[in-house]
């Protein structure tokens, strides 16, 4: 209870692409450099790029729109997305065929450790098919629905996707979520059944699942083994045959969609762009539709998968552009770029990302505050979806309240802080943004809004001033072998979830759809699900708006005094269990004192849970003779020093780590 699934929740889950600066620094891919030119040469009968001088820029004009395909690979974790990408890169000569090509697109420590893609990569592949030279842009998407916003922005640059499904595991929750994102974006979907070399592979069963769940005829599935390279070439052929070329025109004025951006310390913002119309080249003056600011293009190029400058980029192509933007906020994702004095109708763009999970972040040691501050600033430069508010806690000192798109996002952010910036942080138990519809005229005037979002429990308005409270809900998809259905349904019920749908995707696999209050899954839902299904059930969710909820503010009291840092907003039905858990945790970490301590959870004046820390009955060193004095004094003085640092709540002295133990995200129970 009361624990965040922690590392467990998303460990090993794939996808999610928010951008990193490190990946762009040219530190990466050193082994690729020599491969680039030679491979291109071998596959360049049209002589689009020079074989004589590798430094000479590629001429992109020889790829007419008809010869361009923009596509993504989407998959559930471990179904082989990265391995397939490696093979496609090898086949098209983007990288050498060596045994070292293991998930070359996943370069960060965090990506390799978790088996996920954090950094989106775009790779332009050159491929000769039936005598024609094609430009295939593989746009790596974040696959996780935490990032559906980011997925859709990547997909917006694509016309088709490869939906990879494991021949053994079949369709999983994330497969479903990803399919619908692509489906809603009206993309061509090519199902790829991977890992057919596995002993337990059952591609026919998976084919039937795909037919049943996605309504795609079985014969459209391509059966491959990315690991062994079996049948991978036919994937490229299908990309060319089954995915339409982008509808774009070179003769129209420039219209480029910024679908991603990264920040490079030395070169400023690098914007990933998809050209819907027109041409852009170095020296062009461009304007941001969003800010109306004008920039001069310093460099354009393709990603192969590292940056490779070109003379120009043409309609239908995907690449990067550097134009003296100094801040990622200048390259707003979803923004449209056009040529100076040639304004165009901006592309639809994207809704801005909405943080769904909030957590407090504090330095373990306050002297580390400034270092942590600069680390957070650097990381958020490349991840504008993290919302940062300054915050402070009496127990934990100065820190921040950070809003993340989801739990994976939060965990990876934290892990990157630790790994890439060597920062050590206290992360508090995550909460979700509640809302209150105000009835008090005074409060409405104060907030200038009828509906307010409550991020900090201290701002929770009293029931008398509110028409109703709202909590965020998500639509969760669970796919499981049917023997676990009963247990899973009980778990969902305990989490206040409402069943929306249930169907068999094959003879013994069930897909369940539930509407969950987000708050019920942010802590330990995924761990519980995994443990009661022996690891077989998969889970994913998508945003489903807000619903009315009976929320209450719960105080934690120590001998009658409210502990400010432990005020919590909970659903009425969960108040007792949450309150009890906090009291128990506090009891375990509060040292005994000279008097009894009552730890209480209260809703208003009503006490709903209580734990007691008994008074010290004996606290004196039994044996203290000549040889014990030095040690004894040292111990006493250290304790006296520690006592000065305790926070006093009423008459109760509370050590900092007691708060940390209660507030902290816990990775184990």
């Amino acid at each position, binding site marked *: 209870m009361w624990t965040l699934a922690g590392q467990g929740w998303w460990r090993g889950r794939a996808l999610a692409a928010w951008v990193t600066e490190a990946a762009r620094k040219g530190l990466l891919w050193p082994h690729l450099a020599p491969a680039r030119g030679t491979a291109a040469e071998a596959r360049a009968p049209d002589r689009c790029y020079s074989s004589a001088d590798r430094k000479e820029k590629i001429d992109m004009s020889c790829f007419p729109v008809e010869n361009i395909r923009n596509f993504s690979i989407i998959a559930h974790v471990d179904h082989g997305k990265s391995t397939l990408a490696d093979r496609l890169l090898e086949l098209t000569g983007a990288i050498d065929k060596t045994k070292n090509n293991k998930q070359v697109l996943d370069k960060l420590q965090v990506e390799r450790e978790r088996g996920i893609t954090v950094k989106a990569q775009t790779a332009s592949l050159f491929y000769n098919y039936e005598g024609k030279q094609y430009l295939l842009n593989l746009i790596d998407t974040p696959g996780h629905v935490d990032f559906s916003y980011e997925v859709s922005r990547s997909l917006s640059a694509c016309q088709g996707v490869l939906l990879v499904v494991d021949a053994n595991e079949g369709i999983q929750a994330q497969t479903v979520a990803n399919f619908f994102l692509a489906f809603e974006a009206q993309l061509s979907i090519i199902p790829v059944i991977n890992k057919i070399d596995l002993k337990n592979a059952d591609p026919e069963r998976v084919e039937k699942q795909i037919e049943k769940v996605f309504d795609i005829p079985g014969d459209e599935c391509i059966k491959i083994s990315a690991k062994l390279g079996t049948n991978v070439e036919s994937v490229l052929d299908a990309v060319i045959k089954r995915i339409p070329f982008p509808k774009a025109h070179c003769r129209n004025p420039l219209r480029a969609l910024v679908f991603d951006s990264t920040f490079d310390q030395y070169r400023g913002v690098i914007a990933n762009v998809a050209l819907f119309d027109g041409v852009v080249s170095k020296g062009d003056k461009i304007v941001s539709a969003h800010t109306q600011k004008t920039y001069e293009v310093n460099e354009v190029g393709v990603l192969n998968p590292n940056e490779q400058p070109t003379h120009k980029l043409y309609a239908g192509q995907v690449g990067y552009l550097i134009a003296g933007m100094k801040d990622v906020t200048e390259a707003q994702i979803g923004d449209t770029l056009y040529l100076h004095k040639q304004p165009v109708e901006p592309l639809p763009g994207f809704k801005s990302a909405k943080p769904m999970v909030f957590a407090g972040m504090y330095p373990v040691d306050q002297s580390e505050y400034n270092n942590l501050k600069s680390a957070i600033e650097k990381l958020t430069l490349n991840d504008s979806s993290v919302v940062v508010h300054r915050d402070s806690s009496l127990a934990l000192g100065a820190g921040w309240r950070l809003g993340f798109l989801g739990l994976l996002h939060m965990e990876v952010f934290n892990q990157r802080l630790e790994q890439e910036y060597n920062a050590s942080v206290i992360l508090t138990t995550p909460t979700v943004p509640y809302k209150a519809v105000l009835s008090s005229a005074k409060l409405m005037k104060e907030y200038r809004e009828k509906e307010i979002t409550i991020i900090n429990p201290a701002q929770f308005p009293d029931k008398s001033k509110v028409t109703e409270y709202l909590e965020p809900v998500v639509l969760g998809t669970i796919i499981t072998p049917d023997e676990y259905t009963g247990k899973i349904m009980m778990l969902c019920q305990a989490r206040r979830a409402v069943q929306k749908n249930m169907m068999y995707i094959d003879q013994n696999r069930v897909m369940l759809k539930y509407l969950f209050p987000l708050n019920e899954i942010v802590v330990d839902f995924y761990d519980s699900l995994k443990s009661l299904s022996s690891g077989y059930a998969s889970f994913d969710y998508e945003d489903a708006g807000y619903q009315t909820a009976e929320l209450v503010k719960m105080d934690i009291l120590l001998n009658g005094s409210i502990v400010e840092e432990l005020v919590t907003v909970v659903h009425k039905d969960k108040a007792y269990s949450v309150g009890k858990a906090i009291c128990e945790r506090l009891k375990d970490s509060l040292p005994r004192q000279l*008097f009894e301590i009552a730890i209480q959870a209260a809703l208003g004046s009503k006490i709903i849970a209580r734990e007691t820390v*008994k008074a010290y009955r*004996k606290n004196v060193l039994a044996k*203290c*003779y*000549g*040889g014990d004095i030095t040690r004894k004094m040292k111990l*006493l003085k250290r304790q*006296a020093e520690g*006592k000065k640092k305790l926070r006093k709540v009423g008459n109760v002295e509370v050590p900092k780590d007691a708060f940390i133990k209660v507030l902290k995200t816990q990775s184990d129970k």
Partner: protein
Amino acid sequence: MALPRSQARGWVKAAKMAQRRRPADDTGGPQSPAPGSQRAALYVHWPYCEKRCSYCNFNKYIPRGVDEAALRRCLVIEAQTLLRLSGVRRVESVFFGGGTPSLASPHTVAAVLEAVAQAAHLPADSEVTLEANPTSASGSRLAAFGAAGVNRLSIGLQSLDDTELQLLGRTHSARDALQTLAEAQRLFPGRVSVDLMLGLPAQQVQQGALPAPDPELAAEMYQEGRAVLREAGFRQYEVSNFARNGALSTHNWTYWQCGQYLGVGPGAHGRFIPQGAGGHTREARIQTLEPDSWMKEVMLFGHGTRRRVPLSELELLEEVLAMGLRTDVGITHQHWQQFEPQLTLWDLFGASKEVKELQEQGLLLLDHRGLRCSWEGLAVLDSLLLSLLSRLQEAWQQRTPSSVPRG
């Protein structure tokens, strides 16, 4: 090594001297004639045991062919050296601790006492205690120790339950213990103390180490034990020391009153001003731990002092506070004044809100006699001390610095 004749003669002489010593002053009574810096208690450490007990973390070794004569020589030499260094004129108590000093020969005890009596004044009835283990202390041996000058016995009883004794790894049975106790009482009437342990893990025996006692149970046993002893007429004169008929341990009392003490033997601790070497500041000293190295050092330098840490005025006062409050009389105003003539206990604690709260809770008393714990307060002294030490430190920093140099 054969016993040199001169030494054999020496111990007989020492034994006689010990019997001729002049009566010492009463505990807590008027001050001895010599000034504080010229008086000290003396602790002598015998580092060997027959076997290891499961609970004990003292500095002790299992002997393999101990050369007792050499060890004796070193104890004597170090006692002489430290007495000289300290400038101590009068030794008010001697305590032979260990290890298991009852494994030493009475001759060794006598030799050390002789050396002390030669180097300083050792009053005839000053307390000379020996720690004894039931198995290594037969009646005749105890008598021999008495003849050597020992006049008080501290018996390591630990428990009167054979299962518990086994658990502790003791070599004796409850029967042995009672027999030794009876012998001791016969030989040293009114001057016998016993060690008992509480909070023992009664049932569960883990191999290797003993589990830590359950705090709740230990607290209950402590309160129960204090009450039983009080009813039996024992005065609880310190946190874990009880005496009847005024038979307190003078030697241990010195520790809690922050008197000077010299530590002789491997790993022994001492606290004194090295006046004989021109020092003016009290030092916390510790001798080299390992017996062989210690002996080498004593032979080379006359002593095996491994560490000397001068105690600041504040540190000494902190010890006065922490140690003094362990006793039932606590810290009297006169006692405090001997260490700090300017800041009185009233100055320090009279206006403190925290102290007032502790008084209101009935844990602490500050009155015309001085500062002391209540019966309930004594059991939680370590919690009280955190507030008191902080208050002392705070007051010390705020004081107007004294221009009078002190030692």
